[in-house]
């Protein structure tokens, strides 16, 4: 197998790699898809966690190191993976999430599928910080359109200036706690719209099912009614017969020849520990922003002394994650609820996009609001602090005996929470680089992170806290916990915790200040491409997946065209 030369080697099977594989193979190219984790299909009963009851898990769904989002979460991986360390420099506390399975992190994500808007590609024009993208919304729009139609996303056309309309499936009706949120937001003059999630509320083709409202997209859907790259892109691509899938294969580096042109990759078969080389005419790295940067930095040769694509010293730089903060409230009016099935889809039915674009604030760039609550399935942690809200209704907290049953029912579904996700300002100094002294279990040098939030993110978090407090109170809520102050950076999540890392191989027209061109093609090696969020110049306050896929599709068209012109 290894002697065969592929037209394209794709590294990573998540959103970017899945889309690259699907498009390139369907265009007739012979593709090798390399995935560091195992094969995964949520339709296979032995891998299914959807519709399991909590008592099937001895820990009742509690999180583990291998599944940080709970025992039933479909994503295998996390911030702490056996044999795959990373390090932090100085005071940095960066948390690096990795998925290790077919479909990568698309098995984990919240299906929030937001197009970047016209302003998001040109943020430097708004605030003078960072850089503009070399492309604009009009370049990506045709691909967003195609992604909408092919993959499916529900939402609504609102004609908003920086949250573009799309080809949406119809939205699910709001749940009760979401109606409380809507009313609270209205009092605060904050708009609310149907959320935009890639979940099929309506049939999109004959291969995939239609959502049956179990609220468990995080467990992966056995009828493929939500998007994950494995089920929606890779599996269909495999059917075409032009893709060879290599699982449990960890890429060490991109190999190059004496002209500095890439010849393939070397990878470790994790089951045998054996290192092998694979030949390919073109390499598409889609291992996730930091992993792709790591592969490039580890691909050193006489022609690429600083690592492949790194003549500019920009590989790993401008790393940035979304900002995040959250708050919750107890809603007394939601006590003693009538119980019915309100699972709904696996995520919020309503959300608030950034609504203060033109306001004068002490930070730049915005954030959106995500809503949580409802009568969710009991899982590990349910019943903890069973009657803590008694404090707010003048009753005693604690006790024992059958009265606790009444307390549980009294407060079930009475919590409303908000999570804010915002845009950070990309910084040259925030980066991942190779740690000179530490290697992983295959001897591959690991990443070291160097990352600090700036005053923009900290001030933004303060604004988030004020917003959440006001809306929750206007919704009739009693705020829970204490409001984090400056000593806790206003509850700002650690970098990496929101799992939206981008920017490490950013695109640009100037090879001295960027790693790739507008198609994700390395300035320094024309047959090497990056198809993950590493190419993002700035991240918007939008979850990156939809843009990763639009750009990967655009890139695939370019690669096919370059093949036709015999440039690759």
């Amino acid at each position, binding site marked *: 197998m290894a002697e065969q030369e592929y037209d394209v080697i794709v590294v990573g099977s998540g959103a970017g790699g899945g889309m690259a594989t699907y498009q390139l193979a369907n265009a007739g190219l012979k593709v090798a898809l390399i995935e560091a984790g195992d094969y995964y299909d949520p339709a296979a009963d*032995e891998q299914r966690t959807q*519709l*399991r*009851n*909590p008592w*099937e898990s*001895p*820990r*009742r769904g*509690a999180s583990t190191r291998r599944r940080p989002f709970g025992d*039933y979460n479909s994503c*295998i991986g996390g911030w702490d993976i056996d044999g795959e360390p990373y390090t932090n420099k100085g005071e940095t506390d960066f948390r690096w999430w990795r998925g290790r399975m077919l479909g990568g992190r698309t098995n984990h994500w919240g299906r929030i599928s937001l197009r970047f808007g016209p302003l998001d590609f040109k943020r430097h024009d708004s605030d003078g910080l960072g850089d503009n993208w070399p492309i604009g919304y009009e370049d990506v729009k045709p691909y967003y359109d195609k992604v909408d*139609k092919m993959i499916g996303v529900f939402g*609504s*056309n609102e004609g908003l200036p920086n949250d573009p309309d799309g080809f*949406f*499936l*119809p*939205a699910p*009706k*709001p*749940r*009760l706690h979401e*109606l*409380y949120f809507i*009313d609270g937001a209205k009092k605060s003059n904050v708009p609310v719209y149907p959320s935009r999630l890639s979940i099929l509320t*309506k*049939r*999109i083709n004959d291969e995939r099912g*239609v959502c049956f409202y*179990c609220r*468990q997209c995080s467990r992966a859907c056995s009828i493929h009614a939500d998007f994950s790259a494995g089920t929606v892109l890779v599996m269909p691509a495999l059917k075409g017969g032009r893709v060879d899938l290599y699982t449990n294969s960890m890429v060490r580096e991109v190999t190059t020849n004496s002209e500095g042109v890439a010849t393939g990759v070397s990878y470790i078969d994790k089951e045998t520990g054996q290192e092998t080389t694979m030949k390919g005419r073109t390499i598409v790295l889609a291992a996730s922003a930091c992993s792709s940067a790591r592969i490039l930095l580890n691909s050193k040769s006489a022609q690429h002394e600083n690592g492949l694509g790194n003549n500019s010293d920009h590989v790993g730089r401008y790393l940035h994650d979304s900002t995040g903060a959250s708050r919750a409230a107890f809603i007394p009016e*939601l006590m003693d609820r*009538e*119980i*019915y*099935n*309100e*699972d*709904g*889809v696996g995520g919020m039915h309503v959300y608030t996009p950034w609504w203060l674009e033109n306001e004068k604030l002490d930070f730049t760039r915005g954030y959106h609001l995500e809503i949580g609550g409802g009568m*969710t399935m*009991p*899982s*590990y942690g*349910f*019943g*903890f602090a*069973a009657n803590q809200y008694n404090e707010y209704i003048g009753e*005693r*907290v*604690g*006790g*024992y*005996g*059958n009265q*606790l*049953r009444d307390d*549980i*029912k009294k407060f079930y579904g009475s919590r409303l929470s908000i999570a804010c996700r915002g845009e950070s300002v990309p910084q040259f100094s925030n980066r991942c680089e190779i740690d000179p002294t530490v290697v992983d279990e295959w001897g591959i040098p690991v990443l070291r992170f160097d990352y600090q939030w700036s005053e923009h993110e900290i001030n933004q978090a303060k604004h988030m806290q004020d917003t959440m407090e006001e809306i929750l109170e206007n919704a009739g809520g009693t705020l829970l916990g204490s409001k984090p102050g400056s000593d806790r950076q206003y509850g700002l999540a650690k970098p990496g915790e929101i799992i939206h890392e981008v920017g490490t191989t950013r695109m640009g027209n100037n090879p001295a200040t960027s790693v790739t061109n507008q198609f994700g093609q390395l300035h320094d090696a024309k047959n090497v491409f990056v198809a993950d969020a590493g190419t993002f110049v700035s991240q918007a306050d939008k979850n990156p997946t939809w843009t990763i896929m639009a750009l990967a599709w655009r890139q695939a068209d370019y690669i096919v065209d370059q093949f036709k012109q015999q440039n690759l």
Partner: protein
Amino acid sequence: MNRRETLKSLLLAPMATGVIASSATSKINAAQARTWRALPKDYSYGRTEIEKESDAELFAEDYFREHELLTIAVLCDIILPSDHPNGGALDAGLPDFVEFMAKDRERYQLPLRGGIAWLDSYSLERFSANFINISEPERLMICDSIAYVDNQEAELQPGISFFSLMRNLTMTGYYTTELGFKDLGYVGNTPNVWDGVPENVLTKHGKSYEDEWLAKCVDQSKRDITAQWDDDMNLIS
């Protein structure tokens, strides 16, 4: 009879003070705790091989001493007694669950072990015997003093922390079983078609759906018709 059943029978049987401990020890030894070691037969919920191996190791391990387990069982039974149509903690597999969680999350081990020791020490001081060997009214007297978080008495704080942890584990352990689902009235986790909050619930809460909003929502009678759009992004099917 497995260890869980043994504990339950011991706890439910009317017994004189002091009998529990010695009787428990011999019965638990006799049962050899087989069911606590083996993996449950229906142990298949999408685990990887590595996860299966590491869980098997946890099942094979014993953390608590028998005295500790018995104390945990007595406390679980006080927190959610079995004299209820939907059963109680012991019917729902506590304290097996507490032991599993203590093995799964090491950070629970010391608070639980130390908490039990604190409880015995306090019980010895007040009633001259370990917690499980005092009378039921005496046990409840102790629980009354450590079950409420507003109790400021400094001496009792370790006991209050411990009782809170036991209550958390007992409640979560119970409500994540079929008995707990029934007690709560939970009706989700099953395929269905969500079509909004029931009308009577909306009325009760003084909420309503705006027409403008509903126009954006799915018409569930057409959910199975393949989506089609016009060139202006309007859904037309």
